[in-house]
């Protein structure tokens, strides 16, 4: 099979950067204690600014599909390809604008390009590399000539107080499982273009491999919405209540994170990373850029020590992230990082880039390995 290249990258971040002290003006205020937990969360995740597709008056400035379409158009412009040449579209998002139909249809509609093949990938962060893998393989098997993969999120809509009110309000004890995400996730989109040839001028990225592994056989849901709890005793799906409003009243709509479980996933992710290093015989010191989709702070000291002792640690000066000023945009993050890497770093032929996207949703671990190809 032929080599396939990422020939264009793009991103779209709505509105202006929102500083930490401006967040409540947009996502709303729940309580004093919620804000205090928010401040603690922000110290931990290290995010200084982010973007929201919500305005201070509560109205939205974009839909999720509109952001995806803007990022895709940006990536196509960067690849210097007209949008109507795209013959395969793979989208990823945690939650589309509608419950039905699929998100790729909405993005196709927004793009307004001629009929083409498409695929909707829905998961949390790892759906980004599911879409990328699908686009990569589709071009690789000659099923398409010009494929795009997008990742986009409109997380902020989950965090308005109205989404919690019946079961969580100013009188509630702050729930870290709710507050962590409220102060961590934000909106945005990113995209990449896949082609069978590198572009005539400038930098392309050859996709060497994309691998992912799901550990849902051993982990219950960890980041979830649509059920009150991930405990088997009360995890009735929202759609099986007597009515959507009953599910909402019960708290089955909110987006939550189970921290105890999150930390249990780290070893599984590290184990998979070590497996891949062995499988592909990779020397961590040969990796020029490591793009991890999560904050360095959350990589526990113990995990770091384990990586050092197993000869698997990528030197920290090679870690590249724009989390602090672009925010954590879920499935869009890895594309948004790639966009900045390609457009701001002095990439030279032969350099290696490793993208790492762990997903706490129900334990998925994804990697993408790229080689820089410079036609200048």
């Amino acid at each position, binding site marked *: 099979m032929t080599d396939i290249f990422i020939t264009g990258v793009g991103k779209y971040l709505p509105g202006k950067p929102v500083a930490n002290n401006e967040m409540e003006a947009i996502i709303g205020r729940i309580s004093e204690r919620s804000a205090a937990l928010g401040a603690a969360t922000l110290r931990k995740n290290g995010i200084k600014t982010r973007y929201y597709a919500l305005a201070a008056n509560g109205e939205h400035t974009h839909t999720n599909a509109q952001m995806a379409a803007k990022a895709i158009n940006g990536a196509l412009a960067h690849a210097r390809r007209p949008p109507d040449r795209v013959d395969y579209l793979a989208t990823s998002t945690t939650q589309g604008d509608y419950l039905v139909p699929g998100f790729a249809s909405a993005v196709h509609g927004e793009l307004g390009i001629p009929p083409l093949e498409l695929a909707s990938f829905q998961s949390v962060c790892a759906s980004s590399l599911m879409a990328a893998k699908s686009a990569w393989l589709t071009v690789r098997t000659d099923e398409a000539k010009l494929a795009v993969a997008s990742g986009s999120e409109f997380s902020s809509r989950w965090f308005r107080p109205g989404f919690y009110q019946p079961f969580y309000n100013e009188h509630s004890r702050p729930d870290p499982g709710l507050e962590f995400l409220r102060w961590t996730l934000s909106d945005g989109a990113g995209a990449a273009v896949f082609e069978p040839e590198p572009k005539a001028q400038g930098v392309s990225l050859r996709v060497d491999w994309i691998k992912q592994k799901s550990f849902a*056989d051993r982990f219950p849901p960890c980041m979830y919405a649509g059920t009150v709890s991930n405990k088997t005793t009360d995890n009735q799906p929202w759609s099986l209540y007597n009515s959507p409003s009953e599910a909402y009243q019960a708290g089955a709509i909110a987006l939550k994170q189970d921290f105890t479980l999150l930390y*249990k996933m780290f070893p*599984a992710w*590290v184990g998979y990373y*070590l497996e891949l290093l062995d499988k592909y*015989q990779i020397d961590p010191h040969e990796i020029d850029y490591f793009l991890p989709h999560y904050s360095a702070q959350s990589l526990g000291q113990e995990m770091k020590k384990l990586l050092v002792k197993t000869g698997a640690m990528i030197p920290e000066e090679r870690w590249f992230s724009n989390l602090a000023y672009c925010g954590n945009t879920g499935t869009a993050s890895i594309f948004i990082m790639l966009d900045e890497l390609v457009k701001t770093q002095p990439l030279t032929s032969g350099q290696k880039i490793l993208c790492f996207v762990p997903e706490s949703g129900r334990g998925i671990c994804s990697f993408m390995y790229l080689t820089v190809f410079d036609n200048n």
Partner: protein
Amino acid sequence: MTTKGYQLTTVQQVLRKLTIVWADFESRLLQVPIISRAMNNQLQLDDYRILLADHYHQVKEGSGWICRAASSITEPYLEQRAVFISHASTEHMDYQMLERCYVAAGGYINELYKQSKNIGSEALSAWMYHKASQPNPFDLIGAMFIIEGLGKRFAQTFAETLHHNMGISAEQLEFYTYHAEHDGDHLDELEAILNTDILTIPQLPDEIIRTAKVTARLYLLQLEELGNY
């Protein structure tokens, strides 16, 4: 492991493979009924008592098989034998802490004394003593990586879950929290012993990994068979 452009040290290679085995083991632990029920807030105090009772033999025998392994170590590895002996001596009274937890959890000590091994514990115990009886059984380092790693890495979150969700008291949890807090840096200790010249023993690196895998499976079996004697 010689690769394209770089070479891992044998110690790094062994620790890497052990970490892969351990990662699989730890995540599979969550599927074991007792752990899964604990994580789902479905555990009762008497379930916890059964866990303590069934864990009892393994804890009591832990320093036993390490001593047996020490006695199987011959020249020129007497320095390493000393490490085994000192490890065994650190842990050999730990079972008393477990006895206190059992009583605190409402159990009668005489019942604990009479308690026989569950069928998984039988297999685990037989395996450990079998291995420890082989000449220079340094492959047991693989077993230690699994069992000690469990104490250090898993016991803390397990104890916290039981405490917060099930209201199991600090006194009843002493054994697990003590191990989480005091198991020290076993990774450093294991690395130190691997860094002596034992890895030049033919086949030993592979045997360490295999012993780790078997021990991990039997450890799960012990937990899966709680109450089945």
